[in-house]
């Protein structure tokens, strides 16, 4: 059954200059699905996420998440910039439980949820540290925990690993898939790295240049659990090339 429904989503910023950010996007996403979005810089991906998480309410078209309007849906947002999107004055655990605290969940209950998550990703020993005492990867892991602690309907990840080095991002991808296998959260993931987009996804949505339209959707039928070895797999290459073909069918430019 369709869990997230995006129907004829259009978004234009009527500032000066007027920017048509999303031309027309329609997409249905199943519960528990892992969908990645692959498209050129500035094509409107973040705009789409802002609509989905209820921060951007001025748009055309219809969007529902778990039958709810975006403003009423629970969204776990993981931002690309883990530095600016986290709260440096809070400890790791207090960052993780931020959303629950805003909702008025009791401290005991909050810490129970937060501690459990931090243990799962091996961050618990750092729970009383401040964010600036952690490495970039650990910060982003904290940010993922913050999103999950909120018990979201959907996880939105906006290029979460693109600021990390190669080795760390691959490690984080595996960590993310491990978490995802356990809780099967519906996950929407923006990536500008084709390997990442393919390796993580059930489906890769290829977007055009701005204003965003869907150029095509590629199903990734690699077996799960996914491993980094698959990056060298024949089948991986085939799928990757399909994505590239879609992406570049007009030389990447329109």
């Amino acid at each position, binding site marked *: 059954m369709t869990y997230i429904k995006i129907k004829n989503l259009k978004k234009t910023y009527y500032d000066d200059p007027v920017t048509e950010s999303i031309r027309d996007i329609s997409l249905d996403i199943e519960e528990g699905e892992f969908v990645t979005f692959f498209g050129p810089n500035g094509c409107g991906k973040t705009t789409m996420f802002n609509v989905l998480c209820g921060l951007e309410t001025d748009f055309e078209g219809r969007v529902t998440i778990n039958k709810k309007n975006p403003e009423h849906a629970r*969204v776990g947002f993981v931002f690309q910039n883990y530095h600016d*999107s986290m*709260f*440096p004055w809070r400890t790791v655990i207090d960052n993780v439980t931020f*959303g629950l605290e*805003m909702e008025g969940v009791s401290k005991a209950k909050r810490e129970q949820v937060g501690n459990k998550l931090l243990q799962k990703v091996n961050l618990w020993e750092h729970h009383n540290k*401040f964010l600036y005492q952690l490495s970039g990867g650990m910060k982003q892991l904290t940010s993922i925990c*913050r999103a999950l602690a909120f018990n979201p309907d959907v996880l939105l990840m906006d290029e979460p690993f693109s600021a990390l080095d190669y080795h760390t991002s691959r490690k984080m991808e595996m960590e993310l898939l491990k978490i995802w296998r356990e809780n099967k959260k519906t996950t929407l993931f923006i990536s500008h790295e084709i390997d990442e987009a393919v390796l993580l996804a059930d489906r890769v949505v290829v977007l055009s240049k701005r204003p965003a339209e869907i150029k095509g959707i590629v199903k990734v039928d690699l077996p799960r659990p996914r491993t980094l070895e698959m990056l060298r797999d024949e089948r991986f290459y085939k799928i990757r090339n399909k994505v590239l073909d879609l992406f570049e069918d007009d030389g990447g430019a329109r």
Partner: protein
Amino acid sequence: MSRLEFLKTLSDKDGTRRTGYMLLTPLLIILIWQFSSSLELVNALFLPGPWTVFSELVGLCLSAEILPDVGATFVRVFVSFFLAIIIGTPIGMMMGYFKKVYYSLEFVVDFFRSIPATALFPLFLLFFGIGDAAKIAIAVWGSTLIIVVNSMYGVKHANKLRLRAARAYKAKGFKLFRHVILPESLPEIVTGYRLGVSLCLIIVIVVEMFIGTNVGLGHRILDAQLVYKIPEMYSAIILTGVLGYAINKLFMLLEKKVLHYSGR
């Protein structure tokens, strides 16, 4: 010796070195001071030697004669600064947050800020009389404006992405203010406090030199000068410096502790 101990001796040595450099320039100044007074380069009436001044200073402190002045100045500074914080912070933060408040107050604040506070003192004397009220009111006036401006920018400069993240996790109303906007803007607000308290000290010292003051460092400085008790004048000036320095250091300590996250 373990590696750690070795590193410790290094840093100890470093500390000693630092203290050495810190003392070097003051000692040099005192030395030049001593020289110019021994060689009578400057009239001894205007600039007595350091020994004369320091023994006067110690004497004034030991006899507790000058303590009421220090106390009075301190209380005036403290009270006016406290009031300025209470008035200035909310106004500034509202200007930073609400466009309408900003547009309504921006011009007025900028205009009044362009008038040196001390220029208004005669006016304040008219309204508040020659007692403490006028002195405190004028210091409050001056420092409030600084605190308003810095609090405003503190909120205005709040990281947009951080606010977006907070809103994505449904932070709103007072909780958004208390848990995100306030800590986010606090470093800049506190910078305003530091400027504000310095200005309070400046204004209080200046207005203590006017009529209607019987006690206070400013009064002591001017009084000593009028009757040519020059060593006493220098002592009072030095004590004023010590007071300002102590307040500043206190702030730095507080910032290091409370604003540990600032810029990280």
